[in-house]
């Protein structure tokens, strides 16, 4: 081993560059504050190592990016590696800020250390861009919305803006090329440029040594006196990062889909820019996006010159002043933005919605099948996700969808039945209650309010004189309700329907016999069409599809029977002319019937049982 090392050393001088700290002396003694530099360098190493590991799986395209990241989350160790990568980027920025403040206060930019100062300052915005190019890589709603906005901010820069934006986005809109371009920047160009700057930075520190403060102790060797401090700080930092990665994991929002709304916000460290733009609108916006950052960077770069002009005391207060102003400005703007968002209920609602979507898509993807169209298709074809969106747009002008607590979608102008729990036993039992049938939850605000159905039910109710007769009649109506509800074939009620088969059969007999429903309705071959909706398959998928596609269908509410319900897909020959496509229709119907991929179907049914 020793021989091999000597052999190698003779040819490469490797001992010198493998153990450079060994011979390094530290005048003035070790200090904790020096460790920001070493810790930063090691965090960059952590980013590079975890980044390399992630590269082994990640696939940049709008159809595969989210899926590959979700795949990483399910690879052993993958979730933790990604968590480390994510939280280390935050730690890197915080430490960079600390490091900058430290060297500024210590005036480490004085000759001959100007190059250390300049390379460090140039690396700062690049590191920021490095993290910003990483955030959208999983192609989440949030990430893609962020890069979209960031592209537009870049575009507002005079002269080079529009070209730079197109280079970044890879065209007019975010898409496949945005991801490959960001990936190229994130793992190719930026590491090279930042690496180059850091190389000069570190090489210059080696050459000129650390800036020694007055009042230090005697000269000591760097290793291990300073190294032990560096390693302690690094270990503590990594412990915090590791804890965050372990307990909270890196976030994974829902996959980007132009159909899903999102209100983008930058990451916390860039919120100040977001807030700053509020005060510079219109043509002045460029002051906030380009002007102020450039001015700040220029001021910092000019520090060595400014420092020479000032008296030592003035210089000291100038530096303290700059640090104080920057910290106050950053904190003030960030807090202002956070407070504003905290009181913005609409924004908070989109956050909640975003979390629900993310949880739902992970549930669907965990089930193990992401289609070739990508993870966004999971949500596009999910009734639970699309149902409420489509319902709100197309149905909620008149229909509400509110549960017994009054939660859900409230109609703009409630004037048609509340469709929550449509065709369940509870829903039909109430439908057959004359007090409720013409109430606001059912047909109370339609022209059916004093139709034949209401008078029919009321007549029956007045016929029942004694309490015994009343109970018997209620029991009959309950059986009819159960029989009708069974026609829907709801998956959530399957067990109950099987269990109560005898009573359901009785209900069917009552329907066509004693209670004479088939005088107006058609049911399983009995009665005629035209005077009332067909009760065969009532509430089933087929029945609902037909009803929404065209309520005037002879088996639904033909002619005068229909109040105001529009036909959403009446034209079978020209499907493009319809308001709703067959797919959308199916999504609404499946959602109304409570049929989507879910873990607990039966739990829902038990709450619906009367």
């Amino acid at each position: 081993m020793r021989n091999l090392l000597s052999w190698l050393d003779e040819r490469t001088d490797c001992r010198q560059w493998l153990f450079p700290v060994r011979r390094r002396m530290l005048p003035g003694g070790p200090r904790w504050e020096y460790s920001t530099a070493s810790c930063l360098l090691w965090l960059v190493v952590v980013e590079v190592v975890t980044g390399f590991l992630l590269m082994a799986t990640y696939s940049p395209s709008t159809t595969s990016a989210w899926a590959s990241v979700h795949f990483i989350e399910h690879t052993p160790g993958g979730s933790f590696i990604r968590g480390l990568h994510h939280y280390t980027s935050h730690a890197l920025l915080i430490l960079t800020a600390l490091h900058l403040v430290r060297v500024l206060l210590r005036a480490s930019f004085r000759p001959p250390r100007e190059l250390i100062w300049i390379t460090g300052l140039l690396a700062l915005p690049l590191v920021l861009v490095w993290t910003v190019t990483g955030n959208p890589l999983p192609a989440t709603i949030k990430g893609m919305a962020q890069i979209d906005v960031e592209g537009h901010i870049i575009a507002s820069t005079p002269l080079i803006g529009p070209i730079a934006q197109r280079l970044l986005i890879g065209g007019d809109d975010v898409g496949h090329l945005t991801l490959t371009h960001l990936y190229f920047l994130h793992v190719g160009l930026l590491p090279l440029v930042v690496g180059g700057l850091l190389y000069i930075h570190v090489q210059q520190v080696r050459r000129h040594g650390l800036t020694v403060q007055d009042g230090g102790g005697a000269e000591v060797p760097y290793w291990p006196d300073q190294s032990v401090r560096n390693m302690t700080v690094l270990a503590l930092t990594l412990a915090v990062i590791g804890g965050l990665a372990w307990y909270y994991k890196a976030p994974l929002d829902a996959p980007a889909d132009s159909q899903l709304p999102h209100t983008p916000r930058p990451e916390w460290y860039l919120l100040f820019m977001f807030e700053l733009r509020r005060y510079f609108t219109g043509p002045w916006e460029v002051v906030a996006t380009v002007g102020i950052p450039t001015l700040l960077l220029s001021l910092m770069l000019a520090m060595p010159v400014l420092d020479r002009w000032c008296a030592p005391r003035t210089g000291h207060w100038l530096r303290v002043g700059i640090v104080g102003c920057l910290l106050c400005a950053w904190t003030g703007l960030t807090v202002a933005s956070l407070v504003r968002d905290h009181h913005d209920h609409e924004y908070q609602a989109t956050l909640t919605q975003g979390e629900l979507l993310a949880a739902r898509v992970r549930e669907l993807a965990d089930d193990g099948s992401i289609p070739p169209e990508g993870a966004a298709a999971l949500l596009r074809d999910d009734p639970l996700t699309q149902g409420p969106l489509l319902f709100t747009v197309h149905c909620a002008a008149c229909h509400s969808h509110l549960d017994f607590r009054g939660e859900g979608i409230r109609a703009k102008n409630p004037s048609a039945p509340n469709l929550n729990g449509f065709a369940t036993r509870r829903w039909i039992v109430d439908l057959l209650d004359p007090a409720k049938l013409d109430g606001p939850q059912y047909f109370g605000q339609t022209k059916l309010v004093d139709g034949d159905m209401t008078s029919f039910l009321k007549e029956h109710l007045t016929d029942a004189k004694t309490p015994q007769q009343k109970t018997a009649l209620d029991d009959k109506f309950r059986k009819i309700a159960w029989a009708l509800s069974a026609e829907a074939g709801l998956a959530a009620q399957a067990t109950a329907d099987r269990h109560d088969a005898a009573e359901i059969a009785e209900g069917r007999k009552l329907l066509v016999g004693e209670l004479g429903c088939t005088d107006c309705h058609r049911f399983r071959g009995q009665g005629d069409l035209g005077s009332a909706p067909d009760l065969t398959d009532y509430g089933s998928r087929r029945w609902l599809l037909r009803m929404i596609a065209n309520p005037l269908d002879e088996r639904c509410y033909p002619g005068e029977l229909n109040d105001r319900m529009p036909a959403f897909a009446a034209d079978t020959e020209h499907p493009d002319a319809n308001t709703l496509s067959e797919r959308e229709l199916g999504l609404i119907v499946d959602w109304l019937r409570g049929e989507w991929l879910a873990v607990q179907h039966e739990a829902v049914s038990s709450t619906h049982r009367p």
Partner: protein
Amino acid sequence: MNRRTILKSLSGLLAAGCGAVVGIPGVRYLIGTVRRHGGGGEIVQRVIRLNELKVGQPFRVVVTGQRRDAWTVYARETIGRVWLVRRAPDKNSPDEGRVEAFTAVCPHLGCLVKLDDGNRFMCPCHKAAWTFDGKMVSDEALTYKNVSPRDLDSLDCRIVKDAQSGEAWVEVKYRKFELGVSQKVPRA
């Protein structure tokens, strides 16, 4: 042990701890990639009507099914190709004869086995050849070395009657096998 030695060991320990935080999950992650398997398992499928097969004349059919490629699931794709050889009726199978099935994957390096001009199966990659019984053709008969490590992999295959139409169908139990070994080992 002096102070300096303690500091050195402490630095080393802390550095090792930091390395482990990244290294251990990193190695687990890489091993996870190596250990991941796909394409295992069996799929039983009706592939062709029996009366479309001529006795003694091999016929290639496809097996379709769900295919998983890392995170993507393709609902219906060609996942395998199978050579079917119908045998003449004999005393064990008097009515329709029986059908033998061989996977069309060459056991050498996985190329797609074809039919040569004569009466052999042949792999186009290294000219490995088998008879219609799936047996390796000898080096002498070939006049060169047959590179196949084993006979063609036979698959379980039976004739089933369709419940409705009463037609006879060929049903194959498709699966994949390890390549390059002399034993027929189902792939995990």
